């Protein structure tokens, strides 16, 4: 049930962005979710439907893009896409590896109507990734 906690954080981010960008309504929410997170898509979607009710994100389409884990060996510099939770370098056998991606849970795009009625602008928000988001 931690999807509800995650979506609660998503709602905070959506409301913060809406205030900053002066949105009246959100029609699309796009996420990038690392596969190493234990996120069940159906539960996440259900949680979003529940927690967005009564907010400007009610009825918004939720797109979730799941990305695989990827590690780099700090000894031989080989990079590997993870299909399982195998953090041992497949080239040199070292356990000295670092996660490059796969544990992030990011809001990557919002589409909506601005309070000023302009639907055609594209903007890059000032939100920056925080240090720990990519694992």
């Amino acid at each position: 049930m931690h999807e509800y906690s995650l979506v609660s954080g998503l709602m905070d981010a959506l409301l913060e962005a809406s205030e900053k960008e002066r949105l009246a309504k959100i029609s699309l929410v796009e996420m990038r979710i690392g596969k190493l997170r234990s996120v069940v898509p159906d539960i996440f979607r259900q949680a979003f439907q529940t927690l967005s009710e009564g907010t400007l994100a009610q009825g918004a389409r939720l797109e979730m893009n799941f990305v695989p884990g990827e590690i780099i060996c700090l000894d031989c510099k080989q990079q590997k896409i993870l299909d399982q939770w195998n953090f041992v370098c497949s080239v040199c056998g070292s356990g000295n590896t670092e996660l490059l991606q796969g544990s992030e849970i990011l809001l990557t795009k919002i589409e909506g109507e601005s309070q000023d009625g302009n639907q055609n602008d594209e903007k890059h928000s000032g939100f920056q990734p925080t240090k720990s988001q990519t694992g």
Partner: protein
Amino acid sequence: MEIKMMKNILDSNQQKARQVRKRLDENRILMLNLIGSPGAGKTLLLEKTIEALKNKYSMGVIESDVETDRDAKRLQRLDIPIVMIGSEGACHIESIIADKALNEFDLPSLDLLFVENVGNLVCPAEFDLGEHCKVAVSSTTEGEDKPAKYPLLFRESSICLLNKIDLLPYIRFDKNVYKNDLFTINPNIDFFEISCEKPESLDPWIQWIEDKYSSLFSSDYVMNQEKNVNGG
């Protein structure tokens, strides 16, 4: 209108976790977050750990359970400060709860703070409370496949304790499978086999805690030793 961004939705939990960590570091407190299944032996492990360290360190416990305060009551006989968090049905604790719990302790007087998280191998692994280390507590009676089935916990933990090792002669448990999976998921994790029925088996775990504390707060280690001996 389209707005592109890279916003971490766990940001607010992580910001609060950083605040918790700052409070801990300012007060030279090592916080360990014990995570494991219901019945893995977390509470008894805490009892034995606190008994072993009582003369050296000033300790506190944050206890969390979905229902009852039975675990907190078991620890009360140890005469240490315990803050009970009723999780009110939640399956994990978050950093905002940990931050509030810290307010209930006399932080300057503490050296070690243990969190006994809700019995759950899934959700607690996702949330940083501000602890210095997550401790994965698993037991032989759960089967050898727990690291493979719940890899995030074992990936996020600094140390894994395999408990109830005294029961190995009586149950089916393939230790090679367990260890192979564990070290594939987290090659650098520290690992000890323990039994709370055999106090000497806890010695490496106790030493690990002491080493962790002194590596973080070494300049104050001697001062705290003197403080505890003098009852101050």
